[in-house]
């Protein structure tokens, strides 16, 4: 027995002794990457930027006597490198970054528009294959040349740009005007038959700042009254990031973009509108504003007879949040009338999206996939020519809108 115990102890020691030789890595040795961007580099190479957090700076002044309140240090750092492939560029980074870069917490992949236009298959392969990169992180396209700025734009609310992007995406249903995709979903769409991928575009929007007050600009340069409160704490960034619209792909190449209105048209068809507001004319040349609650959509290949076509059925529910009309919202007929106006408005958005997508021949709506599901034989006849075929097909958009509640008042206040 004692011999066996001794043997077990020996085994235990030999197995545990080389601790740290293999896969062990201490937290503080990691460079936690929160965002990765792929840009065009020189001479057809790819340039990869990573955003690495500086945890100490993030933890703030509380810890062991580090500088007092306020953001004296930017809590993140950028590293860039170029290479023929993404992986090569990433390994190049290790020559600059003092820590082992750790991608498991990467939250956003940002890709330059030009890179996207040349095709994403090679670029995405690395991310898809990596065991560290998660499939549910967001894939965004940045306007050409803006990748770096989008990643760098500081923001007082979320200290790290990557988290700011994620925060915006999380609240996407407040507007439903951009259509971000998760990496995994994007790859699925890339691979699926009869469904072209799309994802949101990130752009820079200049903020209303006076000249000379860019990042790092003088804090004492007094501005308007309202600005003073802000500028006392941090320099107002020159530009804000705005996520808007959708980049549209044909295969793995980006071929164009939908604007914000068209993007919501796309989301209507896909049944992915979960919120947002719509301004709907209510006759009398005035508007009401509807807050969208939820929506569902179905795409069906057209029933028997006649040429091939599609029926898109959209159902949505909403609340009236603002009314400029004099109409009495207590009356069911009025509500129905308003809902019909809304339905018409939705149909217009969808039509706009369809028209734009048709010009790009990219079936981002998934008509092909719907046809595949319902009429596989027919699909196999047309699938090779689908980009040419589908723009010509008729799409019948049927919208059923319902207005549920009207807020806390029925009729707008009436000045007497």
């Amino acid at each position, binding site marked *: 027995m004692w011999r066996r115990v001794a043997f077990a102890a020996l*085994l235990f020691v030999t*197995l545990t002794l080389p601790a740290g030789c*293999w*896969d062990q890595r201490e937290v503080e040795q990691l460079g936690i990457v929160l965002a990765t961007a792929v840009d065009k580099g020189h001479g057809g190479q790819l340039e990869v930027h990573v955003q690495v957090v500086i945890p100490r700076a993030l933890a703030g002044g509380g810890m062991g006597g580090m500088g007092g309140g306020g953001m004296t240090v930017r809590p993140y750092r950028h590293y860039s490198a170029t290479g023929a492939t993404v992986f090569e560029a990433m390994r190049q980074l290790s020559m600059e970054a003092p820590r082992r870069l750790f991608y*498991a917490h990467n939250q956003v992949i940002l890709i330059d528009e030009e890179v996207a236009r040349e095709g994403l298959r090679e670029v995405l392969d690395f991310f898809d294959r990596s*065991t560290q990169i*998660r*499939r*549910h992180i967001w894939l965004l396209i940045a306007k050409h040349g803006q990748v770096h700025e989008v990643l760098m734009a500081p923001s007082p609310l979320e200290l790290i740009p990557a988290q700011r992007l994620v925060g915006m995406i999380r609240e996407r249903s407040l507007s439903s005007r951009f259509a971000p995709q998760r990496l*995994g979903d994007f*790859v*699925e769409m890339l*691979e*699926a*038959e009869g469904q072209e991928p799309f994802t949101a575009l990130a752009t820079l929007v200049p903020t209303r700042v006076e000249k000379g007050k860019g990042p790092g600009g003088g804090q004492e340069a007094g501005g308007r009254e309202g600005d003073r409160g802000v500028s006392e704490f941090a320099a107002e960034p020159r530009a804000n990031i705005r996520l808007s619209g959708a980049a549209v792909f044909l295969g793995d190449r980006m071929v164009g973009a939908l604007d914000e209105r068209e993007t919501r048209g796309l989301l209507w068809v896909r049944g992915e509108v979960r919120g947002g507001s719509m301004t709907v004319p209510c006759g009398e040349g005035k508007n009401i504003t509807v807050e969208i609650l939820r929506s569902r959509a179905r795409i069906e290949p057209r029933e028997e007879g006649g040429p091939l076509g599609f029926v898109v059925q959209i159902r949505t529910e909403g609340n009236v949040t603002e009314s400029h009309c004099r109409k009495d919202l207590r009356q069911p007929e009025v509500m129905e009338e308003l809902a019909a106006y809304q339905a018409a408005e939705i149909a217009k958005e969808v039509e706009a999206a369809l028209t734009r997508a048709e010009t790009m021949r990219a079936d981002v709506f998934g008509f092909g*996939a719907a046809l*595949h*599901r*319902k009429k*596989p034989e027919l699909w196999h006849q047309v699938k090779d020519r689908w980009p040419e075929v589908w723009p010509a097909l008729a799409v019948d958009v049927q919208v059923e809108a319902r207005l549920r509640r009207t807020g806390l008042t029925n009729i707008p206040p009436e000045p007497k």
Partner: protein
Amino acid sequence: MGGRLRDLERGQISLQQLYFLLFTFILATTDIYMPHIVAVKAGRDGWLAVLLAALEGVLAVLVIIPLGLRFRRQTLIGFSRQILGFWLGSLVGLFYIYNFVTHSSRQVWHVSELMVTAFLPTTPKVVFIAITVVLAGHAVRRGLEVFTRVNDLLLPVGAFTVLLVAALVAKDLDLRNYLPVLERGWKPVIDGSLPLFGHVAQGYIILMFLPFVGSVRGIYAWSFGTLGGLLAMLGVGVMAIGVFGAEVTARFPYPALELVRMINVRDFIQHLEALMMLVWFGGIFLKYAILLYMTSLAIAQWLGLRDYRPLVWPLGILTAALSLLPPEVQEVTEFFARVFPGFALVLELVLPAFLLGVAVLRGVRDDA
């Protein structure tokens, strides 16, 4: 012979414990490798392949259980001699022993490969192999009852985890991914169901354990219940097709792992691969222990030894060494997809059916 068998193993397990063992045995590797093969072969009709495999499983039950009940006090090794006579029976026994050995070495390979691929990439494989073999060998040497109890405790945890994964990724499930149904007809479905059947019909291992089971009341109920449970578990594996679509699933070597990677509860609980790995490791470890036990017991019985324990460590080392032979994942996947179905069919259905047939014809039985 009967008396000698009880000398080899004095422990006794219950029917429930036996079927828990079987469940672990089948599930351990099925949910890891099968979804990929099913997705490749049957595409989006993978769920049909699962159903079909379950139906084929019923067939296996109808062969194996009567055979087992006919020889209540004997193992596969023992009764094949009783049925076919010493020499032919020994040959059959040898065939099974060979199969057990290769099968167990494959489990060791699974453990090390999984760990290295997706878990601890730079740790030498030998570490995992050594730990698995030492633990399993230790468990086996302590007897049937001991590793059965470990399994009793771990199986519910494992099954619960699988169901939890299913519940957590259910929101990403898009049933449209299963449409259209039977696009390419039944052939791919049948193709996909065969490797699955090869796993489900591993139920023949109960032929090695039945002599140590106390009461066999309700054995058919347990068999079909287990089949149903397996169906549910395999269904979870096939969920990957519904979540990712058939094309993407076919690209993943471990679709179930990808399912786990999808899990994200409020950005707080995420990246649970490591936990899933633990469940898999536990499962394969138990499968290996069961196999190691069956191998040692079978060899001891085949050679007429009085104790199987001295065989455990040599066999452990042998299987560990063998596990270093098949070098690549691709080959094993190939094996599962092409070779295994036919091999399994012989091993798990044809041969037992043949034994049962001969036994019935010759009127041999041992269920007094």
